[in-house]
């Protein structure tokens, strides 16, 4: 009879002693506040929610490095990085609104469930006032809607699907990264110039929402160019060997293969395509070509020599020569010994933009910050003049068309910037059919 009582109590005691040593309790106080997690007078907590396990762990690690660097710069440590080149001069190295910037981290595992759990822990446990990060669109959209419901700001990390600021846009969410539409709009003119306007394209597409929006955008822009779409084939996300999808390409009469894949899908399908010798072939009297609409330098490394000479687009690249990019590369390189990735760049910039918006608004209230970000025009953050559009919370800026370098000088030097497509070429109306449906709703301050 007394056995059971004893059992529980002794277990709890034992594990309490054990647990206390492992994880110190987080103690914070709350008072009646006007919005969720209103910070005290001394510090403000930001939540960095990045993939730390799973296929995107390296990208997540690079994002985290950028976040830490941004926090350093905001708190006045280090060389200030892009704070010195940012067109808005409100940030002065004293944190945000006089409060020291603190941060918490979490692991999204690139699963929407885990990402939301991690974000909720940041909001409920650590009192985070802003959540940022992520390396895939599914996660970004899931966390964005969570932040909308909880009443905090979400600054998206790497997310490329049209839906993030299209049908799933939210008033509390903001995206600096470019999207599938912009990739296609930027790539098409270059492809037309390099490969001619009389081409037959074969699409291999990752079978989920991002892949579909990428495919849809590429088809729209290449057909406008005069290309013909021979076939579009969907590949399962879990596929690791693409041989059975690539083998039929040569016989289809197509002379361009467009790989709407990202991450390890991209690495494997590109490697496979090159192994099959597609690029050595002459079809319809033309050299066979491969296009990868969205490039990630980190991932491209996994494809090795296969990326050489292949066109794609990217949000930012460390070899850019503008003062903002140079300042960022310098301070990142000094800190970590290698250049930052595009994921790192967008995350760093997002943190700065948030801090600046808070500073200009004079408040951490999500609604005030959203208002400060909406329609905000800035420069000096590596992408040239940029607009945060009020209608859908998407940044509009020049898009880089890159090509795999033939003779890389180092393991970081895989891509070369081939062309910068100006912003007016990639601009679209908020009610463009590819972005239609859904609405921002109203900003939610929570509580």
């Amino acid at each position: 009879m007394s056995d059971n009582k004893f059992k529980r109590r002794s277990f709890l005691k034992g594990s309490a002693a054990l647990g206390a040593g492992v994880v110190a309790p987080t103690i914070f106080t709350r008072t009646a506040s006007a919005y969720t997690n209103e910070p005290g007078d001394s510090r403000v907590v930001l939540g960095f929610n990045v993939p730390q396990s799973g296929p995107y762990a390296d990208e997540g690690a690079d994002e985290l490095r950028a976040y830490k660097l941004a926090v350093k710069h905001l708190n006045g440590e280090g060389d200030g990085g892009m704070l010195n080149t940012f067109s808005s001069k409100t940030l002065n190295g004293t944190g945000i609104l006089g409060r020291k910037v603190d941060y918490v981290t979490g692991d999204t595992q690139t699963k929407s469930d885990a990402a939301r759990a991690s974000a909720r822990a940041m909001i409920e446990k650590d009192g985070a006032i802003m959540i940022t990060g992520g390396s895939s669109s599914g996660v970004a959209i899931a966390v964005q809607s969570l932040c909308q419901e909880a009443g905090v700001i979400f600054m998206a990390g790497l997310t490329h699907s049209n839906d993030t600021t299209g049908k799933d846009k939210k008033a509390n969410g903001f995206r600096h990264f470019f999207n599938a539409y912009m990739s296609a709009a930027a790539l098409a003119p270059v492809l037309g110039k390099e490969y001619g306007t009389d081409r037959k394209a074969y699409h291999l597409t990752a079978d989920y929402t991002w892949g579909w929006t990428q495919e849809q955008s590429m088809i729209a822009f290449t057909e406008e160019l005069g290309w013909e779409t021979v076939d579009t084939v969907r590949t399962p996300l879990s596929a690791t060997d693409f041989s059975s999808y690539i083998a039929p390409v040569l016989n289809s009469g197509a002379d361009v293969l467009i790989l709407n894949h990202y991450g390890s899908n991209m690495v494997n399908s590109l490697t496979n395509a090159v192994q099959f010798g597609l690029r050595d072939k002459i079809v319809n009297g033309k050299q066979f070509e491969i296009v990868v609409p969205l490039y990630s330098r980190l991932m491209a490394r996994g494809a090795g020599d296969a990326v050489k000479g292949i066109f794609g687009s990217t949000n930012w690249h460390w070899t850019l020569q503008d003062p903002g990019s140079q300042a960022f590369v310098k301070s990142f390189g000094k800190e970590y010994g290698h250049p930052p990735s595009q994921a790192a760049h967008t995350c760093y910039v997002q943190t700065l933009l948030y801090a600046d918006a808070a500073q200009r608004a004079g408040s951490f209230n999500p609604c005030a910050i959203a208002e400060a970000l909406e329609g905000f025009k800035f420069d000096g953050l590596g992408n040239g003049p940029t607009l945060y559009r009020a209608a859908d919370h998407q940044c509009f800026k020049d898009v880089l068309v890159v090509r795999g370098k033939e003779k890389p000088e180092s393991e970081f030097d895989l891509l070369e910037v081939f062309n910068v497509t100006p912003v007016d070429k990639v601009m679209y109306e908020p009610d463009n059919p590819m972005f239609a449906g859904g609405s921002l709703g109203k900003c939610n301050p929570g509580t």
Partner: protein
Amino acid sequence: MLKTTDNKDRLMMIAFTVAVLAAPVILAPFGAGYPDLMQRFAIYGIFAIGFNLLFGLTGYLSFGHAAFLGVGSYAAVWMLKLLSVNVIPAIIFAVVISGLFALLIGYVSLRRSGIYFSILTLAFAQMSYNLAYSVLTPITNGETGLQMDLDDPRILDAATAPGQLPPPSLFGLEMGDTHYLSFMGLDLQLNVGFYVCAAILILMFYISLRIFRSPFGMLLRAIKSNQTRLNYTGVHTRPYALVVFVISGMYAGLAGALLVCMDPLAGPERMQWTASGEVVLMTIMGGAGTLIGPVLGACIIKYFENIFSRVNDAVVSNWFSGLPDSLGDFFSAIVSPFLGSGWQMSLGLIFMLVIIFLPGGLMEGVTRLIGWLGRLFRSRNNDEDAETTSAKESSPDPHSSRPASPKES
């Protein structure tokens, strides 16, 4: 004999209820006393209890149980979207749908036993996952996951403030509402959603206890120990196994519905084989066939996932900030591979250690600890001779085959 079991059960029920209701107090010192994690403990506790009904009793190892969790989640979101943000219809609908789904899969899979059964359930779950991710996007919203939307019909609800989504609620009590309380220097968060989950957990625990003690439960155990003999004695076992499979699937569907009610989003990863594997691991680690074990296993795995993964370098170096720099760096270097992005490493090690040293899972550890404490307590009152004998008795023999596992408690 019967009476003592009854008494024990009553006591266990009371202890369990108190522990669950007091969770915010118990968990706060571990840094786990915030609503999201407490809800997850309760929900995955329900999931594991349900899985244990099937696996612990009949020995049928389903490797696709996450499919029912996923189906329950999708069903619940659809109810929240179409009918009302009240959680009751969502939960009921999810349990019904996942029950039907379990009936279908169970009917087919239970034609085989052993590993062939496991692979059949795995195959069904993986098919569900792959289809939910891509082909079934109109129903599941694919990779992004199914969420509530501003322009959902919600035919039973009154109009809400424009531009804002109404949160799921129980007759006006919002799941996200939290009451903050200071207690003995701890900040407690008493959350509505958690107490809804807790109440259901207690109820589900009670049902599982009743099933364990019922003649039906006895029959299920007989399936585990010798199915052939049962068949020879004229008992047709498959209907019984199917009933418990469906019950177990409904538990999973209920867990899925609760996940959605606490946080209205259902994503396909919920159905992936790793999710099915997770509930298997929870149950085995806690102690398959025990009543409390699965809940314990669920809590530990979720604790590692949510707390260990959040300990970053800055936090670690903060712990050792009192030490001299070189020593602090040394300790940081030792512990960091197991924390933050290395949280899975610690989890893997825990799996191995638990099962190597505690063959019956954590509950066996608890039973041993009690036995040891009991002997210690008794030997205090006796002379030295008795103490040495009891010490000899208690030393475990590593080469002996598996000791009788604790079936109850």
